[in-house]
């Protein structure tokens, strides 16, 4: 109410803005309102709205070793992709932001190209390339493939936090006797750690919900959760998928709220210290 009063009287412009915003938000969030009730349905059909309620599809998810294996696989791949992406993105971001070598712009464009190239093209290309090295269906292949997709995000996020930092601080550290590597570890890294954390988070999520590439390069030994869901929709349509979706929605909410809580805590501490 307070915010509405601050905006003053409702003009036609306001009405249009609010209507469009409401439609967009509704479009984004409505699928969740369909899938969550279905997951609590008793029927074996994808029925909306459900006529009777039960937890049987959650039981079906948690007691199925195939589903749980796929979940664990997704977490393992996500964690590996996260680690690899951050390890690669850090030096890449430093090169892009601090370097002054020839061809820097070209390298930057190549690094960021997976953001522009359609995933399906990268997936097909990787499928052929991996078949030369027998990487299709392997864990390493899947991690490499997902890292290709995650690396641009991680690089952009870390580069942005490096841009915000005063590069003179590294120079000061060196002038005070720190070897450049030590200056990075003791000064630069602590100052960009929130950027690194966000990059890691994005890298994990990129892998965790990736299905297009997974369709091409996963095998029976590397079945991830999104791939398993994809197969589920195609072959054995039952509400277990809805239960899995509900769990995933819950999981992402927890992650987002956790991230927000950490950010706020940092902000509050900073604000408090600045005010003193």
């Amino acid at each position, binding site marked *: 109410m307070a915010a509405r009063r601050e905006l003053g009287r409702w003009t036609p412009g306001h009405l249009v803005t609010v209507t469009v915003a409401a439609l967009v938000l509704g479009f984004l969030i409505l699928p969740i309102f369909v899938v969550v009730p279905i997951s609590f349905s008793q029927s074996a059909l994808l029925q909306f709205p459900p006529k009777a309620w039960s937890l049987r599809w959650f039981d079906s998810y948690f007691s199925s070793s195939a589903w749980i294996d796929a979940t664990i696989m997704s977490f393992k791949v996500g964690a590996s992709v996260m680690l690899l992406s951050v390890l690669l993105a850090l030096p890449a971001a430093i090169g892009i932001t601090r370097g002054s070598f020839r061809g820097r712009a070209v390298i930057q464009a190549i690094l960021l190209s997976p953001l522009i190239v359609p995933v399906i093209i990268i997936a097909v290309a990787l499928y052929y390339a991996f078949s030369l090295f027998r990487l299709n269906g392997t864990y390493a292949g899947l991690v490499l493939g997902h890292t290709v997709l995650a690396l641009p995000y991680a690089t952009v996020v870390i580069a942005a936090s490096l841009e915000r930092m005063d590069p*003179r*601080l590294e120079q000061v*550290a060196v*002038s*005070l*006797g720190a070897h450049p590597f030590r200056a990075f570890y003791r000064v630069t890294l602590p100052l960009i750690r929130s950027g690194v954390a966000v990059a890691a988070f994005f890298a994990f999520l990129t892998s965790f919900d990736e299905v297009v590439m997974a369709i091409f390069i996963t095998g029976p030994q590397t079945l991830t959760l999104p791939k398993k869901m994809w197969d589920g929709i195609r072959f054995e349509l039952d509400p277990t998928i809805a239960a899995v979706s509900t769990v995933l929605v819950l999981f992402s909410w927890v992650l987002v709220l956790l991230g927000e809580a950490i950010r706020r805590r940092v902000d509050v501490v900073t604000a408090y*210290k*600045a005010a003193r």
Partner: protein
Amino acid sequence: MAAREPQSRSVAVALHGVCKRYGDTYAVKGIDLAVSPGEFVSLLGSSGSGKTTTLMMIAGFVQPDEGEIRVDDIDVRNVRPHRRDIGIVYQNYGLFPHLSVARNIGFPLEMRGVAKSEIRRRVAEVLRVVHLEGFDARLPQELSGGQQQRVALARAIVFGPSVLLMDEPLGALDANLRVQMQAEIKSLQRKVGITTLYVTHDQTEAMTLSDRVVVMNAGRIEQIGRPEDVYERPANRFVATFMGAPNLIPGTAITAGNQPIVRVEGGATVAATSGRPIAANEKVHVVVRPERLRIVRDDEPALVAARVRESMYVGGARRYEATSIAGERLVVVQTDLNLPVVPNGDEVKLGWDPAFAWVIGADETAPADRSTASGAATSWRSAGS
């Protein structure tokens, strides 16, 4: 070179023929400078004069294209910056925002593997020196600008570096705090006795702090000298103007030597002093500082006539902008406020005490003509200190 000391042992920092090019342009073009141990030397110049580049070459963050840099008589060109043992203070303080005051100051000691207890002791000691006892646990953002600058200073000297470099360290402070910090820096430098190179574009600051001032322009040294040298006895037109003496009265030398008699425009003759022998009939400029130029009464001998264009009260003094009969700009600063105010448009007679009349050659070019006058540049520098 006049600036080079004969015994290299008594030199803390020495630059010989140092050049730095960026593409085709010289940022620094042939710098020769010798700084004695414990000396406070300012590099004074406007932006683009090469003063910061020179500092960064001593620190090791910029590699010279030509020339030699010695610190404590060691050629440092191949010494990596973190091994040079040089303290640096920047304008933005450069404090590590994630570390407390004590951790900031202890950083250089930690990097040198000093024991924790010893670090604590030395940090406490240097905090006393900069009057910040009890601030050890604070974060930089909890301090005022002046306090942050003192922490930066403490951090730059705590490890006993051979040289302290300061790049416009007071640039971010307001005027009153600047003056206060100047006094603190000066007394601290005297107490610690550390050789200091100080970059600034502020003439007053350079003169207040320094044993010697190096006036730089377009990558070259225009003059090296004690503050009173560059202020009262500028080597050339650039230094005179830059040091706030725009009064360049054209004339012709009647007699030769270091104490020539000069006939100035309007016909009056005046005794003056020069830093180099002047030839008879040489075209010269007589430099008279604004506060030495006097508006004389009608019954006194006058040297130049001028018309007042503008008079301003500048706090403790009155400043007249005037134009000489020959069209030269003249500035008079009158500290005796009991004298009547001359209205704009009035013609006045100006005079000065011959002791304060300084002669430079008229062909000693304005900074814009610099690149074509490299021959003259060499002779000016010898005239310096």
